[in-house]
């Protein structure tokens, strides 16, 4: 028996109150498990939070949630948050899909604003790239099949009928292990349409040659068919509501309490140790942090199965971000910023931009949001909020020193702002009333994310959401230790992280109840 002196006991302990940890905690508590959520920071949400500078409250990370949908066409995320957990948070529909600008596309500047809605999207892309309609229709039909196949797989809970899959989702099976580019080519989507359709690629952080097709297809189709949503009061608006739900359901959530050790005996979780030296007993842990942290730091070395280390080493950690948050003392309208969401790609190919994410050069791709164009009163009258985001792999910043840190992040932020001004044809710099620049270091500081990554493991074909979902049980290298969040089996992004918490919770509930009955 273990010699630990446990001060209390829980059915489940959730480590980390990020998106996945919060939904995991809420679902476990709702299902009647004695639940404890431990969070090292003093706020819920991880990156799903907010911060205040002067008269502005900024959204740190979210651009838009997919798989949400309106009340009468609810997606899985709305179902989880508003129907299952009854958060009662306010949600706003984002006005357009995106404006995509590629200033140096090989046939000249590409500048399109794409709407939501499958029909509207196809009509618009046909007007931009005449003759593309039949191919784009095929592509979108394929995306729809992917979404349906995922839904079937999720509903079958691991008991997939292969024959049924083959007769109903043959295209899904045949494209499952290929990249977005391979499928574009197979379906003969014209070049310009490829560019327009792949605009969201940076949300998954991997160029179209490497990015797994079905993972992209599912996200793309859900955006088109259900629109995109954001919380009315920044991400903190729904994460603080999730915190309350955990308490309302009888769960406990404790902040400023870092787990420093996961205790294991005979390859079974037996508890955790906190930074204050408290030992808390449990047989179930849902880790809302990545496997690198868990197996590299939290579990004592002799207790880590070799395969868990190898699995970590086989995967690449996704990128981190550089974000410039601007509080501007002029309205979006007066500034001439008319769209909510901008993708600006300063190099023609996604491979070149991805290379930029893996460099220490000025940003070559940005996703920029003007919050007022979705929530007009998100800042005081006559002002606006703009945030510009690019990606960097944490390792690219490894030579940055404390002395040149501010100059470095500001140099990149400035380059990104200048590019936005030049490409969109607006001026924002003179109107900056508040500015904050977040970097990979900021992410590491506040969330303890491994190397500041905001995305999970890279979504390559061999490690896409499909094999991850199919191997969910094989990957419980230590019994009772499950994962939720961007590093988990649903891959990264708000929707995936939130839903992964629910899945991890339901699996835990099933096991915990079975154990209790024994």
């Amino acid at each position: 028996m273990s010699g630990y002196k446990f001060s209390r006991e829980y059915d489940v302990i959730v480590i980390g109150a990020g998106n996945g940890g919060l939904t995991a905690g809420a679902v476990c508590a709702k299902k009647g498990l004695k639940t404890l959520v431990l969070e090292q920071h003093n706020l819920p949400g991880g990156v799903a939070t907010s911060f205040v500078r002067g008269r502005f409250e900024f959204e740190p990370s979210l651009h838009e949630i997919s798989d949400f949908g309106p009340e009468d066409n609810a997606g899985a995320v709305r179902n989880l948050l508003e129907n299952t957990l009854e958060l009662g948070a306010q949600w706003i529909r984002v006005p357009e899909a995106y404006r995509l600008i590629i200033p140096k596309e090989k046939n000249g500047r590409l500048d399109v604003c794409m709407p939501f809605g499958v029909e509207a999207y196809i009509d618009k892309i046909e007007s931009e790239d005449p003759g593309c309609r039949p191919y784009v229709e095929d592509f979108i039909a394929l995306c729809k099949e992917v979404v349906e196949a995922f839904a079937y797989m999720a509903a079958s809970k691991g008991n997939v009928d292969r024959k049924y899959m083959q007769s109903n989702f043959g295209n899904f099976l045949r494209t499952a292990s290929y990249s977005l580019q391979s499928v574009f080519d197979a379906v003969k989507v014209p070049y310009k349409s490829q560019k327009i359709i792949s605009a969201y690629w940076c949300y998954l952080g991997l160029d179209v040659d490497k990015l797994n097709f079905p993972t992209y297809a599912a996200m793309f189709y859900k955006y088109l068919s259900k629109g995109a949503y954001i919380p009315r009061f920044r991400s903190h608006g729904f994460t603080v509501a999730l915190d309350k739900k955990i308490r309302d359901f009888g769960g406990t959530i404790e902040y400023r309490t870092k787990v420093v050790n996961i205790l294991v005996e005979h390859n079974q979780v037996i508890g955790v140790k906190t930074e204050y030296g408290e030992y808390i007993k449990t047989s179930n842990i849902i880790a809302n942090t990545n496997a690198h942290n868990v197996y590299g730091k939290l579990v004592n070395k002799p207790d880590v199965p070799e395969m868990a280390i190898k699995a970590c080493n086989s995967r690449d950690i996704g990128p981190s971000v550089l974000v410039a948050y601007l509080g501007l003392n002029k309205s979006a309208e007066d500034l001439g910023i008319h769209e909510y969401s901008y993708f600006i790609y300063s190099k023609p190919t996604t491979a070149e931009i991805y290379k930029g994410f893996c460099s220490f050069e000025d940003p070559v791709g940005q996703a920029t949001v003007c919050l007022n164009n979705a929530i007009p009163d998100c800042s005081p009258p006559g002002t606006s909020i703009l945030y510009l985001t690019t990606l960097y792999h944490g390792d690219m910043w490894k030579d940055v020193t404390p002395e040149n840190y501010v100059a470095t992040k500001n140099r990149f932020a400035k380059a990104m702002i200048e590019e936005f001004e030049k490409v969109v044809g607006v001026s924002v710099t003179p109107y900056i009333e508040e500015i904050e620049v977040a970097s990979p270091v900021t992410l590491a500081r506040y969330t303890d994310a491994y190397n500041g990554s905001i995305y999970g493991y890279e979504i390559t074909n061999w490690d896409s959401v499909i094999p991850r979902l199919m191997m969910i049980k094989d990957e419980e290298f230590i019994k009772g230790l499950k994962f939720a969040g961007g590093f988990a089996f649903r891959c990264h992004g708000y929707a995936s992280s939130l839903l992964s918490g629910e899945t991890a919770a339901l699996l835990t509930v099933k096991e915990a109840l079975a154990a209790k009955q024994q």
Partner: protein
Amino acid sequence: MDKKLNVKIKPIGLLDLLAFKKLIPNRKKKFEEAPATEIKKTPPMNELAAKLHPKHQKFMITKITDLTDSMRQFELASDSAAYFRAGQYISVKFDIDGHKVTRPYSIMSSPKDALSGVYKLGIKKADGGYVTDYIFNNWKVGKVIETSGPEGNFYYEDMRDAKTVIGIAGGCGITPFFSMAQAIRDGIEDFNLYLIYGCKTLNESALKKELDQIAATDSRVRLICVLSNEEKEGYESGFITADIIKKYAGNEPYSVFMCGPQVMYDFVGKEIAKLGLAKKYVRRELYGQINNIEKYPGFPKDKVGKKYKLTLHIGNNTITTEALSSESVLVAVERAKAEAPSLCRTGECGCCRSRLISGDVFIVPDTDGRRMADKKFGYIHICSSFPLSDLEVEIPVV
């Protein structure tokens, strides 16, 4: 779109199906083939974050110098002092007769000195000041103190501020500007800093000599002393007014940075309003906790001079104590010898964010730094929340 699609990547679609079947074995093979080398515990970004933003720092007091009759400079040394932006502060932790309290102090030294493990603080003795009394009696050379990492947003930011900053300082409010002036001299910052320094008399103008020296060698730094209690040739006299600011600002656009006691903010704030500057060009450092809240506009008159019951939940412990209407909930916690997290003590930073379970508080609107959703869900920053009834509050552990 009801025609039957038949997508194949490879000319023979069966190969694609085979690829699907191989997804699991392939992934297992990838795992198998990966090396079992140790996972790096602290990758570069987490390492840099820990250097830039340590949660705690320990310093030894190595030198004490009197700057004026009532202001002392404390030189602190450590093996590693976090680098900072000129103008930032540290929160110092005290244990005074079992009361665990904190105070924020601007770092007055150059960021360059931090590279050799040195910070300097300039602390003015306040009349009846609970903590400054303690410091002046107990901080001796050799004493070890604990602080936070560098905090705060009172620094120059070239994408936001004008190239010229009019720094308005009073009392120990000179300290962050002294750090900025040295940062300019040391090549760390690049902007014009014209300091308008309000003092009672020339004798009380701490750091004047040092600032004059910097100004003599670097034209970007200028010092203008405004003496309120004496008239001297070559110095402005009276209070800092809009006219004085205009006189020294010149014709180029400028930002105003202000740091000093609350009374200075009340007076100079009105003068700055006359300048008609856009909000972005006026920034003020936080002045620490408010000492006369009951006189604050909007504080309910029938709630003056009251004493309430305060129930605190901290971790697994519940403590019941008293709270005065004239003191913040944070101070009540500290009086009860309990401990709450705190940094800025002005309501802005949110470090002391706590859950108000029941009761009413008065919150200073000017410095209410709470998030919108926190207002709705009943969270308060206890350093700037004053009791208006019995309270029950859940406070995070320290």
